[in-house]
């Protein structure tokens, strides 16, 4: 059923990243290690997006989840020292967490397998890249005068002003 080629090897590899990383997050006793395992798991998800011909989502996954959110978690852990000394692997609500996690798994698996919200038959057999806009389309739209070049430039000005403002408010007086 599964032919051995580069794609299927990559799929198995990324699956191992995701599952192994996820297992590492819940079993490690060191919060920093947990955050690093989380990054591994999220990286695997980014790999899945590449396999699904969605390179833009893969880039967003890396930039937003690994670049921003995981780093934020690490910062939060480092800033709250008292948290790092926790050694208990289970607390009193472990069964509740397990129940919610299991239900979520059943729910998601059913959603994928049963055609409730699932794949529309209209696009069956077509690669995703033929149906949705590609990264190239997106890039062109952002610099096309008839599309989004103005909001794009305004957003960069806004970010510049916000950064300068953050520095003004946060820096020490000279």
């Amino acid at each position: 059923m599964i032919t051995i080629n580069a794609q299927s090897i990559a799929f198995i590899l990324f699956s191992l990243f995701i599952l192994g990383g996820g297992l590492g997050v819940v079993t490690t006793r060191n919060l920093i290690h947990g955050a690093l395992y989380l990054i591994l798991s999220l990286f695997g998800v980014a790999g899945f997006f590449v396999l699904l011909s969605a390179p833009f989502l893969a880039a967003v996954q890396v930039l937003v989840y690994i670049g921003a959110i995981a780093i934020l978690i690490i910062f939060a852990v480092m800033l709250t020292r008292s948290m790092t000394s926790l050694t208990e692997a289970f607390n009193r609500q472990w069964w509740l967490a397990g129940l919610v996690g299991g239900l979520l798994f059943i729910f998601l698996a059913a959603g994928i397998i049963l055609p409730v919200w699932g794949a529309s038959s209209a696009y069956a057999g077509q690669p995703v890249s033929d149906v949705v806009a590609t990264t190239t389309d997106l890039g062109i739209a952002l610099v096309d005068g008839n599309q989004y070049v103005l909001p794009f430039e305004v957003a960069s000005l806004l970010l510049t002003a916000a950064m300068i403002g953050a520095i003004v408010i946060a820096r020490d007086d000279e």
Partner: protein
Amino acid sequence: MNATEFNFLASLPSIAPEVGLTIMAMVVLFLDLYLPESQRRNIAYVAGAGLALLAITPLIPGWAPPADGNLLFWGGMVRHDVLSQIFKVMILLAGAITCFMSIDVKDIGRKGEFYLIIIISTLGACLLSAASDLIMVFLALETMTIPLYILATFKRDDSKSAESGMKYFLFGSFASAIMLFGLSLLYGFTGQTNLYLIAEYITSSQFIPNAIPVLGAMVLIVVGFGFKISAAPFHFWTPDVYEGAPTPVTAFVSVASKAASFALLVRFFIAVFPSALVIGDQHLQDFWVQLMAVLAVVSMVVGNVVALSQRNIKRLLAYSSIAQAGYTLIGVAAIQAQTLEGQTQAVASVGFYMFMYTFTNLLAFAVIILFTEATGSETIKDLAGLNRRSPWLALMLTIALLSLAGIPPAAGFFGKFFLFNAAVQANLTWLAIVGVLNSIVALYYYLVVIKVMYVDRSPDEDKPIPMSISYVWVLGVTALVVIVLGTVGAQPIFDWAMRSAGSLFS
């Protein structure tokens, strides 16, 4: 919209002030880097003069809106019409005057970043007055307000300033989120982001006629606008932010952000929910004009009644600003007039009111800046004897307060006259009467301040208030504009506002 080839040169005039503002932001940044400490004052002059010069760009004849009626530019992001012109002029002038009156303020006057952030905020406000696409609307709104959060916090060592910045940020982002939710619902129903295409889609046969969800989106958007124009019951941030923020920032927030939001308010509702729009058998316009009328009454009553008991002059002006938003909303509610002439008059009265309010409020705040920089006090009681300390300053504040109250020959009289007239034209006589009654209540607390300045005595009467040359110009020019708008200037500016209103309905 996308049918025509993109023409860069033809598109430039629609964002000429914004391009200029971007260049100025860079110039100010470099000046801040290279000017020695002793010449830092010049940054303010450069920023102020630059903004004032840019206020001319919307008026250059060659850059006027094209006559062929194709007013949407940059892929429908902005609409280059007379309404955006008149509001851009007032916003740019407000930014210029704010720069000139920040010069001698402690902790902020010599900081280049302050002027840079004012310029970016002005840019956002300018774009907001022309925005005609949901994406541009939200982005311009944030480009205007995020710099304002920073400006409110600018006096970092002052805990009141930090508190006001934090409050403004929390309330503001909350309001933005609510509004964004409404905007995204509109996009979800129609699949369009352009304001004009949304209405087109709703009237087309593809749209499943169901008015309730569209009304829900409309209410969310009204709530967002309510925060931005500080209308009651969404006004809670106003007094604290006005009191705590550095006074030039308060002045800028009270005029530029309010004017731009009103420009967008009339453009948005006329474009998305025009009078012709019917879902099922519901006229959507009937809903939003009633909402505006209710907001107008609540804002006027809350603003004026609470203002009566204020002791701090900045808080007094904050509640007065809530009440003024209420008066202006009368004009928005009057868009329900049956005739096109009446609708145009209603929008024009809003434009004129914002025009005169900009200069009036800047005049009032300029006097307060001079007073607080000299005395360190913001309470009304300490204004006692101002007439003997500095008769010109007392006269200027009197002109501003009379204009806010609507007494001729100050501009506020014509502002209120046009608003109430538009309301009567639209068969909203009851609303006009509520407005007049509120103006009488408001007159009381404005007159109390004038009485304190002229009649009450104080032991500091022999200490004059120092005034540098740039403040003399600020006070002189704004006072002159307020008087001119209340006498000979009223008709030409109102005609301009009429043309700007007409451009919305074409």
